[in-house]
């Protein structure tokens, strides 16, 4: 120790080791004690598991399942408990970062209200039952129900879980797999598929100099938020691109925009066409589209569009000129555009803008597709929910399976899912939490949390390389009567198929499947099969090569429909999504309930956003309760008044209003999804989430709106100082 400077703490530690070290060992040791140094003296009273080193955190790679973006994780495990997750730096999706939902994954795992044992409906209530009895009952039902009467409702699902669901359904002869996600971008995907031939193109935010986002909250709730936030950081560095956000209610992305525009809801497509027309009219970019398209655009001159959208003509011209000045550009469309009855056309208009600007192949590249088609993500959407609801209405299903999906909560009342559930004689919920659907089911099968379970994930949005992420358990299951999703799937498969008898559990299946993948996929992995598997678990992700076919734009003439006036229900309802509670699946996580909404800063409840002019007319202020009524129902919630919303819009966030789902979620706030009208997007059949018209009335109730922050402005105190982008480029633009 002669060459090492011993400080006071080090000295005391050495003293502690020499003297009382042996006596200390059974206590909770500080992390800093080195076992290697004092091994001989240390004799633990309790011999821990082989991989447990008391006081030392060990990191294991896994995958986040809080949303379906598929971020890679590193989980810190100490004394056999998972304590915290961090992003996996090897993951190309999140590059070592996480969002708040990812951080809160541990609370999903340790949630005090998990379902801990199988339950079966006996009379009105659910009674505990053993797994053996549950599975016996279930296999009896599977055997006795004809395949076409069996349906599976899931969320987005990918990897081997997706394979097992399809295998199970084909083993019983069913084709009824409904993947339902309330927060999705399936209209945009359809537009991409139709207009550029790739449903999930890779978006190069980092290359763009200007992004015009029509309602795509890519920093918050769109496709792969953490990935896009990372790309956004690149976009904002160096030459610093400019972000224009067009949406009726300010989202997290809108809050970061250089220019935030509230067009009349439903007219965003017309705005895109107006911008496109202006660009073509000036002759800035005409070579990219045929004459017919141009002719169709001529109807959208600036003044007409300004009248239609409520966006001043000068603004439209400005956007158009920015578009042409600042190539490369990128235009994207998100939920508020997709969620209209004319969503497909509007999103097509946005894509047309990209085609005109020559962005295809530049800022919009062909997306990477996982070579194994069966493992690719089956992205959830709301079209499937509509189909499922219709099937239920038509009494098409007898045996229903729900996994990772809570349609009783997320489906609008107008779809009558809850009422019609009784049309199916036996409903099975594979779930981790006692959600509304589980409580309505006849058999509840408790699953491992994602931190106890195995899995593989192939994210729908693939960044620069094809990648697959492994989900491995970060600790032993908390409850002995829970089972892994894959394990349950294997048992279900074994009811009618013998092909899976060789796999005792999902782990063996997954391992076999992974190490037997084609060479092209496991290019990064070398060595024997066991070594490959170990490497895979160590890395957590498998980044194979990239496949980049060329995209061919197929521009077409588009006519963007407008939104008619509705005198009975004059306002538009925006059931806004938020990074945090998501579609309501995270309402049972206290950290996320206590994390303020990024824009309104409200916690632990619901609120309705109103523009000051609307609130003034209505005579309400922060905290007053209003009634938001649509043709399909009404909700009452508190008002938050701010300017980041179109005056003709009332925005109520999704996520609250659970009637079950544990102590943190139950009976808290309202669920705006419930009062949505059953309007479908005309071309894709998706549920038009943003097309519901409502009226807003004042009630006499008023309470303090529980939110973070006193003053809404800085009062000129220079907390956040702002400089011009020109200055930024002068000083830091070289990078």
């Amino acid at each position, binding site marked *: 120790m002669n060459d090492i400077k011993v400080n006071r703490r080090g000295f005391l530690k050495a003293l502690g080791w020499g003297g009382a070290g042996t006596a200390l060992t059974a206590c909770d040791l500080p992390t800093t004690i080195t076992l290697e140094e004092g091994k001989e003296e240390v004799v633990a009273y309790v011999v821990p598991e082989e991989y447990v080193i008391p006081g030392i955190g060990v990191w294991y790679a896994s995958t986040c399942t809080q949303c379906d973006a598929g971020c890679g994780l590193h989980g810190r495990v*100490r004394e056999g408990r998972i304590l915290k997750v961090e992003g996996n730096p090897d993951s190309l999706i999140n590059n070592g970062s996480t969002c708040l939902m990812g951080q809160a994954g541990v609370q999903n795992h340790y949630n005090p209200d998990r379902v801990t044992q199988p339950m079966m409906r006996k009379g009105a209530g659910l009674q505990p039952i053993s797994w053996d009895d549950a599975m016996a009952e279930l296999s009896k039902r599977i055997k006795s129900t004809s395949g076409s009467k069996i349906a599976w409702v899931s969320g987005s699902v990918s990897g081997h879980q997706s394979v097992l669901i399809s295998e199970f359904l084909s083993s019983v002869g069913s084709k009824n797999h409904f993947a339902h996600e309330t927060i999705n971008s399936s209209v945009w995907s359809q537009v991409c598929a139709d207009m550029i031939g790739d449903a999930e193109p890779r978006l190069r935010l980092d290359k763009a100099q200007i992004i015009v986002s029509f309602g795509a909250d890519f920093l918050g709730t769109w496709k792969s938020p953490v990935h896009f936030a990372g790309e956004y950081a690149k976009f904002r*560095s160096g030459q610093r691109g400019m972000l224009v956000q067009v949406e009726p209610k300010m989202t997290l992305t809108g809050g970061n925009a250089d220019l935030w525009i509230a067009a009349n809801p439903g007219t965003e497509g017309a705005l895109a066409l107006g911008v496109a027309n202006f660009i073509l009219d000036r002759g800035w970019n005409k070579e990219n589209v045929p004459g017919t398209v141009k002719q169709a655009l001529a109807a959208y001159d600036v003044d007409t569009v300004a009248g239609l959208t409520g966006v001043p003509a000068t603004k439209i011209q400005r956007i158009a000129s920015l578009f042409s000045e600042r190539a490369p550009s990128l235009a994207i469309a998100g939920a508020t555009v997709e969620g209209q009855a004319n969503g497909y056309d509007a999103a097509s208009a946005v894509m047309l803008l990209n085609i005109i600007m020559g962005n295809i192949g530049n800022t919009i590249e062909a997306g990477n597709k996982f070579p194994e088609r069966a493992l690719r993500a089956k992205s959830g959407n709301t079209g499937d929910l509509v189909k499922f609801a219709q099937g239920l209405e038509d009494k098409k299903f007898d045996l229903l399976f729900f996994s990772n999906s809570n349609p009783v909560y997320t489906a609008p009342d107008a779809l009558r899912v809850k009422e019609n559930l009784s049309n199916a004689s036996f409903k099975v919920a594979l779930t981790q939490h006692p959600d509304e659907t589980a409580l309505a089911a006849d058999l509840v099968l408790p699953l491992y949390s994602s931190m106890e379970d195995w899995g593989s994930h192939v994210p729908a949005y693939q960044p620069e390389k094809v990648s697959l992420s492994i989900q491995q358990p970060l600790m032993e299951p908390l409850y002995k009567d829970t089972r892994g999703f894959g394990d349950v799937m294997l048992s279900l498969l074994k009811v009618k198929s013998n092909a899976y008898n060789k796999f005792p559990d999902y782990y063996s299946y997954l391992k076999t499947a992974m190490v037997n993948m084609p060479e092209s996929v496991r290019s990064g992995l070398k060595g024997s099969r066991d070594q490959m598997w170990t490497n895979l678990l160590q890395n957590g992700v498998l980044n194979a090569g990239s496949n980049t076919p060329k995209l061919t734009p197929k521009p077409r003439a588009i006519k963007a429909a407008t939104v008619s006036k509705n005198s009975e229900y004059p306002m538009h309802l925006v059931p806004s999504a938020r990074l945090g509670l998501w579609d309501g699946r995270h309402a049972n996580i206290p950290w996320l309930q206590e994390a303020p909404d990024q824009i309104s800063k409200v916690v632990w409840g619901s609120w309705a956003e109103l523009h000051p002019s609307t609130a003034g007319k209505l005579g309400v202020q922060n905290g007053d309760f209003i009634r938001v009524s649509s043709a399909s129902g009404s909700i009452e919630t508190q008002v938050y008044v701010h300017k980041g919303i179109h005056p003709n819009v009332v925005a109520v966030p999704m996520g609250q209003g659970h009637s079950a789902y544990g102590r943190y979620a139950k009976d808290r706030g309202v669920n705006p999804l419930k009062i949505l009208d059953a309007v479908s997007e005309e071309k894709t059949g998706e549920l038009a989430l943003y097309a519901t018209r409502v009226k807003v009335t004042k009630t006499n109730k008023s309470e303090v709106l529980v939110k*973070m922050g006193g003053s*809404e*402005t800085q009062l000129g105190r220079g*907390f956040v100082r702002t400089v011009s982008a020109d200055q930024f480029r002068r000083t830091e633009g070289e990078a």
Partner: protein
Amino acid sequence: MSLKNILENFSDFRRDAEVGGHHDYEHRWAMSIDLNLCIGCNACSTACYAENNLGIVGKEKFEKGQAMHWLRVERYWDETDGEFPEQGASFVPMMCQQCGAATCEPVCPVAATYHTPDGLNAQVYNRCIGSRYCSNNCPFRVRYFNFWSYYEQSWPEPLNQQLNPDLSVRDKGVMEKCTFCVQRIRTAKDTAQREKRQLQDQDFVTACAQACPTNAITFGDTLDPNSKVSKAWRKHQVERGPYTHKKPKENAELRGYRVFEELNVDPSIMYLERVRETEV
């Protein structure tokens, strides 16, 4: 501080603002937070909850203003008269600034908060008697008091299994605040010592910096000239020590600033100004 000392070093004592703290620092942990990159997503705040055993207070106590978010993302609207906030919102992650001349330190009657040779404002929970003067004297208002025994409600079984054993769970009557994840600093230092090497930049970062999806937060040691944070501070010509108008930046267009610098508290967090297009 003998009279002789005062007389001999009078010029040191009569400077316009106190330098404060230790003068033989081992490290000076600091941050650079780029508000051009910060999107206000709250990942840092939740990561802080996970790392530092922050209590969940629930709706009623949040309403009273008794939340324990060591790191909060403040959101401000622009003071414009327009119909819409066309330039979006302003977000700023606000946590303990680990001031070099911290106002919280001299007022604590029992010296429960003091300056470490690492340049941190340490809070000794066991010593704290809860006079709350430190919080009253904090211009940033980033000190949080355990008004209740939050642990009784915050982590019902088995949520308590998530608690980080590297630091304590605080009981009522104790002040707490951002520590720059001192437990990570401790672990990294010990690891470095065990491996018989110097602590290196990016050996570890704080939980917030690690979670940040846009890497807006850079953490490191400003005494290490090669650390990322040192480079950032140098690049933006922000220096430690009290604020003085005598040393204008060579390039006034650089974005670095420290919040409330004019109060002479010498914060350890440099913010980089938010950027917005002017012509839109």
